[in-house]
């Protein structure tokens, strides 16, 4: 489930979403721009650990976040170690992972509603160019919420196929998946309209 928010009362949870996003962005940029050295890798890892320890999010949560990106670690390190020295491959992988887990702190400690408010505020200046920040924020929220629904639809389609003895195949999966997903999109559109959005 893409609900990453973990309820809490620490200072990072209480911090306003906009400034918190900016501060985390600065830290992520700083980690990302470090050189590809053993020292930089150690500093990147240290910063990530500090970011979870200082606001008392905890190392267990950091561990969960690292496990969640394990395939990114495998792919990033696996490809780089073929073409680059071990030091560069390790430092680059640590920087990427540190940047991801630090950025994750934003959604771990901020409710989606507050994030959307901050997002709307941040995009306010683009109204003059015809952009509707509320609509963009809504699209983001719906996208986040729809991922688990699509996953459930995919499981349902596969189970229906198995129950009817159909052989697994891309085409036999994609067409019913798209049909059910589009029906869901239709229903979601009606629900949004009914809740005063459209």
């Amino acid at each position, binding site marked *: *489930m*893409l*609900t990453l*928010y973990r*309820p809490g009362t620490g200072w990072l949870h209480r911090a306003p979403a906009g400034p918190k996003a900016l501060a985390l962005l600065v830290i992520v940029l700083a980690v990302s721009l470090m050189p590809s050295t053993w020292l930089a890798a150690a500093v990147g890892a240290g910063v990530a650990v500090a970011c979870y320890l200082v606001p008392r999010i905890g190392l267990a949560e950091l561990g969960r976040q690292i496990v969640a990106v394990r395939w990114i670690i495998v792919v990033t390190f696996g490809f780089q170690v073929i073409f680059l020295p071990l030091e560069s491959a390790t430092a680059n992988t640590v920087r990427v992972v540190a940047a991801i887990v630090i950025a994750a702190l934003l959604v771990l400690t901020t*409710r*989606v*509603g507050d994030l959307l408010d901050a997002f709307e505020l941040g995009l306010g200046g683009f109204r003059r160019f015809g952009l509707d920040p*509320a609509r963009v924020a809504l699209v983001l*929220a*719906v996208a*986040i*919420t729809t991922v*688990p*629904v699509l996953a*459930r639809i995919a499981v349902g389609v596969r189970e229906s196929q198995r129950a009817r003895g159909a052989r697994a195949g891309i085409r036999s999966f994609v067409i019913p998946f798209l049909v059910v997903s589009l029906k*869901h999109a239709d*229903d*979601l559109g*009606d*629900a*949004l*309209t*009914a*809740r*005063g*959005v459209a």
Partner: protein
Amino acid sequence: MTASLVFDDVSVRLGDRLALDSVSLVLDRQRTAVIGANGSGKSTFARVLGGLVAPSGGSVSVFGVDPVRQASAVRRLVGFVFSNPDAQIIMPTVAEDAAFSLRSERLPRAESAERVRLALAEFGLTELADRAAHDLSGGQKQLLALVGAVIRRPQLLIADEPTAFLDARNSRLIADHLLAPTDRSLVLVTHDLDLAQRCDVAVLFEDGRMIGHGDPADIVARYESSLSC
């Protein structure tokens, strides 16, 4: 408060099919059940009432408001609950989803939070406020959908087969919430004839036509006799 919902010779054409055929009806009772077979026009009737489908002909009035020409006004008057609870969840957590319905009202943050708190308490969802909405049970999701509809304090609540996906216990729970005495009117589209008989008036549809309305016991008996033919 009594409903004042007026259908005047309303037809709806969906593709080459007449989903509603010259329906004329005035509803002034608080709780209205809409019954009939699948494809009879019940849901189309509800969607026209809620401004989700525009009639091809005729006119509709919801408390004096035209759902087509005054769409935003009718949104403020009407709350809608659909049968599939999954398709009604917009935000990731229970409290956020409840609060989502209030975003368009631009309420002060404290007032919005208080309305969410009260609504979740009313429907027994307080303990689940921070839970992932999509991880709830079907009954809890439908309760959340109900919260999303009533938190805006609509004058009319339309529920389109709200118990279709639920087990007996959750169906009863949702029905009790829907039929509880309140100031708002209810239009309940349902296949549950026991539920229909708990309403103040019932409307019967067949092949897109409204073929009867009146006392729920009489209308249900008429519908049941048509099933046994």
